[in-house]
Every structure is written in structure tokens, then in C-alpha cells.
């Protein structure tokens, strides 16, 4: 037996190796939102390092941008002052709309649809591959973050939590190829599934007869139970209707600038 093992050591090791990785991969295929002990341990171990590196980098970049590289500052200042004046004028109009909204809400006995708590988190790292789109945030299980929790910013949907460690979590961005969200065109109420294409998004299974136009906003429909209804996902950038077929091809541009994502909000489950 020993002789046999010694003689066939390499082929046996190769077989064992292939079986081990095959087993690990197949066991985790259907459990994308389950965090294994290994993942939790590595994420917990690396979170302080990633946080430290991220803060150091941010400090160096801020020093460079704020004190050394000021070539565009004067020009930006002029533009900002002009924009500020315009925005102030608009703000007055918005205030008036806000007051009106409050009155109408009272009239309709409006109840806040989503009672979830909001947890601010910092983005400390990004996906290490060139094809997947995930980020790591500095909040985890200790802050009541759970797998599947929606992550948003003021502009719209960012993604959902897929792995949770004690002090950090991984978030699958809506632009990832494996991400899909139930969506709704705000103007026409056309339903579909928003899928990630790496950089952009597409709205699939939108019926061909619905007249969706460029610049229409697509929001979450609330179906599926992950994202609350009404969060902005993207803006229609192109629509293609073929002569035949049930559906139209709709391309979306995300409303969130994922290349400059620094702070996000995690929507926590309401306390029972």
C-alpha cells in the first residue's frame, strides 16, 4: 500500500487537488450570499490593513489635490460661484414644493413606506479582479449588517451585501455581470430586470409595445424583496425595438458614479 502511494504520489495528489477545488466551488455555487469561515477570517484580518491603506492614500491624495495641485482651482471657483447662484434660485422653488408635499402627505395620511434604519459606511477596497464589480465597506456583522442588505447613495442604488465579516462586508454592485434587480421605468411603468454589464446596465424583458424613451429613469420595483420600491437605478441611454420579438433592448447608464464611490448607506432590516 505504501509502495503504491509512493509510486503514484503525484497523480494521487493531482486527483485530490482537483476533487478538493471542484468540491469547494460546487458547494459554494448556490450559496453566493453565505460567508464561509475562511472568508470571514480573511476579511476580519485584512479590514484594519485595508482601512489603514485607504486612509493613508486618501490623505496623500487630499494633500496633493488641496495644497499642491491647484492649477484648476481658480477656474473651478468661478464656475462654482455661478452654479451656486443658480442653485440658490432653484432652492427657493424646491422649498415651496417641499412645503406643498408635506401638506399633501398629511392629507393622504402618508405612512413612511420603508421603516429601515440607515447605516453610513466607508468604501475601503474594491474587487481584485478586472471583471467582477464588488466593493468592501467598513461595516459588518457587529453593526447589524446582514447578507442581502441593500446599499444605496443619495443618487440611487449601489448594490447589495453578499458577504459579512465582523467589521467589514462585501457589496455586489449593480454593474456586476451576475447582478439582477427587478426594475420599473418611472414614466411608463414598464417592468423588467436590470442586469449589470460591467460598466453599464441593461433592462431586460421590457415589453416591446411600451414606448420607453431615452433619458427615462428606471427605478426599483420592490419585487423580490431586497430593494425597497422607488430607488433610482439608472437612466435610459438607448432603446432598440426590433420588428419582431416580445421585448425591446434597453441600455441604461447608472446614476451612481462607481469610480468615485467613497461613502455609502446600508439599509438595515427593521427591528422586530
Amino acid at each position, binding site marked *: 500500500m505504501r509502495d503504491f502511494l509512493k509510486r503514484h504520489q503525484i497523480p494521487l495528489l493531482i486527483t485530490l*487537488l482537483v476533487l478538493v477545488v471542484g468540491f469547494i466551488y460546487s458547494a459554494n455555487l448556490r450559496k453566493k450570499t453565505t460567508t464561509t469561515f475562511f472568508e470571514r477570517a480573511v476579511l476580519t484580518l485584512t479590514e484594519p490593513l485595508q482601512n489603514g491603506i485607504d486612509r493613508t492614500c486618501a490623505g496623500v491624495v487630499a494633500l496633493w489635490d488641496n495644497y499642491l495641485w491647484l492649477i484648476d482651482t481658480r477656474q473651478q471657483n468661478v464656475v462654482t460661484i455661478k452654479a451656486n447662484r443658480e442653485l440658490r434660485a432653484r432652492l427657493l422653488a424646491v422649498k415651496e414644493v417641499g412645503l406643498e408635499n408635506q401638506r399633501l402627505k398629511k392629507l393622504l395620511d402618508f405612512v413612511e413606506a420603508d421603516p429601515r434604519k440607515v447605516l453610513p459606511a466607508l468604501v*475601503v477596497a474594491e*474587487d481584485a479582479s478586472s471583471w467582477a464589480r*464588488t466593493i468592501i465597506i467598513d461595516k459588518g456583522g457587529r453593526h447589524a449588517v446582514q447578507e442581502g442588505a441593500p446599499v444605496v447613495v443619495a443618487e440611487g442604488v449601489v448594490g447589495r451585501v453578499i458577504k459579512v465579516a465582523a467589521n467589514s462586508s462585501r457589496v455586489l454592485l449593480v454593474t456586476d*455581470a451576475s447582478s439582477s434587480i427587478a426594475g420599473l421605468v418611472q414614466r411608463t411603468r414598464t417592468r423588467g430586470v436590470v442586469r449589470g454589464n460591467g460598466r453599464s446596465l441593461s433592462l431586460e424583458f421590457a415589453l416591446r409595445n411600451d414606448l420607453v424613451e431615452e433619458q427615462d429613469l428606471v427605478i426599483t420595483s420592490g419585487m423580490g424583496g431586497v430593494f425597497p420600491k422607488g430607488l433610482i437605478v439608472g437612466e435610459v441611454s438607448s432603446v432598440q425595438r426590433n420588428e419582431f420579438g416580445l421585448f425591446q433592448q434597453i441600455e441604461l447608464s447608472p446614476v451612481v458614479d462607481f469610480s468615485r464611490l467613497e461613502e455609502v448607506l446600508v439599509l438595515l432590516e427593521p427591528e422586530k
Partner: protein
Amino acid sequence: MRGLFFPLCWGLIFMLLQTTIFPRFLPPEMRPNLLLILVIYLGLSESFVRAAFLTLLLGALQDVFCGSTFGLYATVQVAVFLLVRLISDRLNVESRRLLLALVGAGTVLQAFLLGFLLTTFAEAGPVLWILLSNLPLQILANLLSGWLLLLCLLKFQPLIGTRQGMAGLPYQSKHHGA
């Protein structure tokens, strides 16, 4: 133990670089896969058992920071390692150019395996198109990083002490006989 500890430390450093520093300055398709270079290097220079164990661990480490399915990169890295090992006996592993050529070929192989596994076993949408469109820049980024890492290794090796089994270096590999 030292032979396991140092490659794992390098793997961790490479992962921290890939997740924190590179995203600040490089678009996704231009970020090199340093762990792939490390796996190819280990495949050429370490003993089979040690290299296999390290590859498995490094693949699992990469899985923690890449994609959404744990085990994907472990599978891919083990496959790359086994193929490197299979052909290394027939090649002159002392050649630096060969090491770089293997990095280029490894990048293509990795993209192919990722595409195959993701489209066959997981519903990953247009991932194949993303992988293919990123491939030319990925090869370029990996070759450049491989070349820089090799230069650093050659420069600093006398300082950290010589050891056998360094592919691409003028020392005869332990695995391939002194």
C-alpha cells in the same frame, strides 16, 4: 514553514495592493493580477506538494476579494498551476523571457477558465464579453508587472539571501536539478 509563510505573506500584500492601491489609479481592465504571477512563479520553482498547497490557499485568498462565488479562483489557479507544472519539465525554466511568456499565456488561460466556469456553472450574464474585452489590457498589465517583479527580485535577492529554486534567475532550480 518559512517556505509557506513568505509566499502567503506576499499573496496577502499583493491582494491588499490589488484591492486598495490599484483601484485608486487604474481602471479595472488595467489592474494586474499579481497572484497569477505568484502562482506561475511557485509552479516553476517550488516542490510539487508545497506549490500545490500554496496555490490552493492563494486561490482561496483571491476568492475572498474577487467575484461572488467562493472556490472559483481556487479552481482556476490550481488548473493554471497544474498546466504550468505539466509543461515546465519540457522548458528551460531558467529563462526570464519564458517566465514572462508563461505569464502572458497564464492570463489567457485564466480568462478562458473563468469564462468557461462562469458561463457553464453559474448564470453570470455577459461576463464572457467583459473578460474578452479586458483581455488585451490584462495581458499587457500582467506582463509589465511580471517584468517589474522579476527586476525587483533580481535586485533584492542578494540582500535577502540566495536560495535554490528561483525561476528566471541564474540559480539552478531545485525542482529541475542542480
